[in-house]
């Protein structure tokens, strides 16, 4: 060995490892300055417009139309005419063909859609890339398969389409909710008027491009943008045979009142306050991941979010320790950064609602924990939050927060877990974490929730029906069940 080799000393070890920014390229998306309404296969010049922004930076992205009653009526007319002049009569296998095309185009253009979804909605690119887009395409593929097999889905019930479906979707999964609504409606032979959420219209507008690329006959899908007034017009419209709404429970109730006695079919997918129940024999580290995924996925803007954590008292401390520790590793920031775990809150209005509910939690006596994290100055942000010492009676344990806020409660026995989990006006979803198979089944039988996840959370599949009990709504989306609301059966 030479002297040179011997003398080499260790360079000083850098102490901190900060990940360099890794933003997804934005230039794959080309936005127009202004978007109109997509009616009868053409762009309708909007009479009124508003500005849609990126919630992460408050940067304006485009001008979009605020549909007036006349514009909504034009869209409904276009859908009616497309329904009567062809779409209801073409061979079901033809309908399948268009759906397969749409699915494939979505796959091909998935990066573009993923970037736009994160840009306009604030969700981390890793989620829009790995969850929203693959699932959206999967929904079209899945319902494409059903289009010419409806007789087999509902044997001896002569399935026939309803006509024009008016669909109103929320801002938490703009494209995925669009896919959940449009795919079964078209597969069943209906035509559609769809309104994306006020804050997240852009992916739906880009989707019109996909419809043209797929050469879908004009008028089969019409998209109008705007706020709640536009939605109310769709609901009221005499030309609509079926209304499908996903959103808040208050609006859902208003729609139900409006439609009472009208003979229109209605499905509602509303809020939730899901219990995520951790038993003492659960695989703890994985359960903690499930808790994180349950509540911080998509900034908690998930109707089925596991926002009430029910922990068996004997493992309360290790679970809370592990959870807090895990919270410190969540990366909050630029939604387009590939390493971001938690993105921006979707809108100012939503941020204010979260802030208000969190303040009430602190006032009522719950103990708040937020990991140290630096939030960007511009845009709408809220740090991941955990409340301990929460009583069942607190507002944060009762009301849907729809943000990255978790309330932790405890239970002692399985019976108590069921009682507490069911003690809510909602009933959309629940999670059970235990290594005991029999207990999973026992719990699932008793939990009044549309979806019960066992040893996982927020897992979706087009073949699995999704929907609520009680004030979480009625009707199912996904699976064979998801066809039924769009069919007349005898």
């Amino acid at each position: 060995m030479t002297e040179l080799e011997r003398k080499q000393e260790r360079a000083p070890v850098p102490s901190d490892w900060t990940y360099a920014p890794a933003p997804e390229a934005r230039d794959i998306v080309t936005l127009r300055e202004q978007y109109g309404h997509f009616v009868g296969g053409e762009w309708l010049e909007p009479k009124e417009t508003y500005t849609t922004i990126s919630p992460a930076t408050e940067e304006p992205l485009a001008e979009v139309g605020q549909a007036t009653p006349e514009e909504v009526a034009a869209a409904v007319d276009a859908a009616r005419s497309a329904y009567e002049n062809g779409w209801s009569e073409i061979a079901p296998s033809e309908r399948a063909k268009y759906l397969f095309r749409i699915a494939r185009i979505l796959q091909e253009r998935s990066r573009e859609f993923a970037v736009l979804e994160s840009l306009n909605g604030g969700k981390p690119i890793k989620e829009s890339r790995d969850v929203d887009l693959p699932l959206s395409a999967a929904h079209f593929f899945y319902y494409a398969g059903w289009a010419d097999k409806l007789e087999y889905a509902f044997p001896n019930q002569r399935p026939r389409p309803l006509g024009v479906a008016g669909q109103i979707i929320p801002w938490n999964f703009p494209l995925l909710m669009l896919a959940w609504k449009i795919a079964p409606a078209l597969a069943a032979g209906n035509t559609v008027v769809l309104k994306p959420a006020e804050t997240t219209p852009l992916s739906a507008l880009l989707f019109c491009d996909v419809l043209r690329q797929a050469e879908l006959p004009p008028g089969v899908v019409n998209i109008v943008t705007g706020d709640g007034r536009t939605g109310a017009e769709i609901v009221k419209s005499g030309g609509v045979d079926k209304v499908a709404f996903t959103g808040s429970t208050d609006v859902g109730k208003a729609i139900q009142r409006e439609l009472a006695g009208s003979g229109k079919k209605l499905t509602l997918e509303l809020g939730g306050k899901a219990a995520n129940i951790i038993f003492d024999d659960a695989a703890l580290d994985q359960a903690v991941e499930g808790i994180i995924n349950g509540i911080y996925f998509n900034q908690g803007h998930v109707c089925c979010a596991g926002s009430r954590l029910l922990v068996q008292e004997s493992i309360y401390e290790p679970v809370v320790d592990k959870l807090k520790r895990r919270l410190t590793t969540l990366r909050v920031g630029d939604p387009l950064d590939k390493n971001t775990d938690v993105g921006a809150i979707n809108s100012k209005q939503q941020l204010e609602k979260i802030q208000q509910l969190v303040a009430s939690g602190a006032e009522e006596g719950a103990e708040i924990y937020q990991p140290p994290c630096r939030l960007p100055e511009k845009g709408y942000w809220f740090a991941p939050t955990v409340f301990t010492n929460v009583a069942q009676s607190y507002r944060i344990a009762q009301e849907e927060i729809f943000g990255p806020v978790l309330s932790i409660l405890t239970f002692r026995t399985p019976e108590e877990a069921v009682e507490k989990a069911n003690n809510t006006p909602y009933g959309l979803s629940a999670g059970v974490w235990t290594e005991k198979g029999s207990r999973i089944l026992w719990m699932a039988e008793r939990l009044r929730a549309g979806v019960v996840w066992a040893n996982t959370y927020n897992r979706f599949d087009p073949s699995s029906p999704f929907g609520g009990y009680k004030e979480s709504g009625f009707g199912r989306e996904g699976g064979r069940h998801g066809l039924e609301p769009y069919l007349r059966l005898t």
Partner: protein
Amino acid sequence: MPQQRPLDRRGVGAESGEARREFVVGPSPAAKREVRTVQTKLFVPRVGEELFLELAPIHGRSVPQTAGSYTRTMAQAPVLPRGFELPLEPRLPRIGSVDAVALEERAASLAKRSIKREAKVFALDLAVRMMDLTTLEGQDTPGKVAALASKAIRPDPSDGSVPSVAAICVYPNLVPTAVQRVEGSSVKVASVATAFPSGQSPLEAKLAEVRWVVEHGADEVDMVIDRGAFLSGRYAKVYDEIVQVKEACGDAHLKVILEVAELGTYDNVRRASLLAMAAGADFIKTSTGKLPGAATLPVTLCMLEAIRDVHAETGRMVGMKPAGGIRQAKQAVQYLVQLHETLGPDWLTPDLYRLGASSLLNDVLMQLRKEKTGTYQSPDYFTVD
């Protein structure tokens, strides 16, 4: 409602003034009571509990003394508290269980981190510092080991800023050569021992081998656990062996190889990890590298979580060494991301993390040079040793 629970038990050990702790095995409830009187520790044995593992401060040579008597009374089932609050202060974490699907998902999601530019250079540089450059072949010769030692000290002769690797890992016979060759440098010598890779030899032979390599200057001993004993439920035998090997190691660091590919389930990996740490392992290591399906990201994550639990319970920091199958710089970065986000920055040191590899180093060097110069260079510019 739980009121004002103390959420952090990590401070408990510090309060009682015991900075350093070691795991001690108690033989049976009866013998355990003796231990208790000595240590004035509260211990309530549970009915049906077969394996007593308790933490106790170091009492000179107490480890082998206690270890000697319990072997016959040990039974098979891996029953340790599952969600049961023992009134012990510092204790082993619950053994619990591992959910394979969720573990693999978490590992896959961590592997998707995008590490660029200066963050990548940091990781690659760290990967070199943490590397156990390994040659474990029947055809190893002093010449081969000498070449390896030079490479270890100065991985990239054309770039002085590239640090030395952590250690070279060789067979026992080559320890004297290795020791001589790395003398004066920061590179340590690790030797495999205990009838590597199968571990199917009498304990006396294994201990003799360990003593021999330590006498000949090995800084670190990589032992294998007795998988035959483990899989037949004779955990005590496994434990006992590790305790004795640790004793035979003296000041040398002990890495305990679980050979995860032979353990079959993540539950077993977790059990073996806790067992090894309880028995005094300084490091736990995935594999011998002699079997396919060696280190993987999920199995390493499973072991890191066990290390995290031991640290949370006792404050003791145990090291981790994935080995086998790590050939590309990209993989090394993924392992480091996983480490960083599971155990935190405290573990980002060669004292607590090693990458066991034979062919990884050159790819890391190539990537490092690419980051520094902006272009990839031919593999011919990196020495093959």
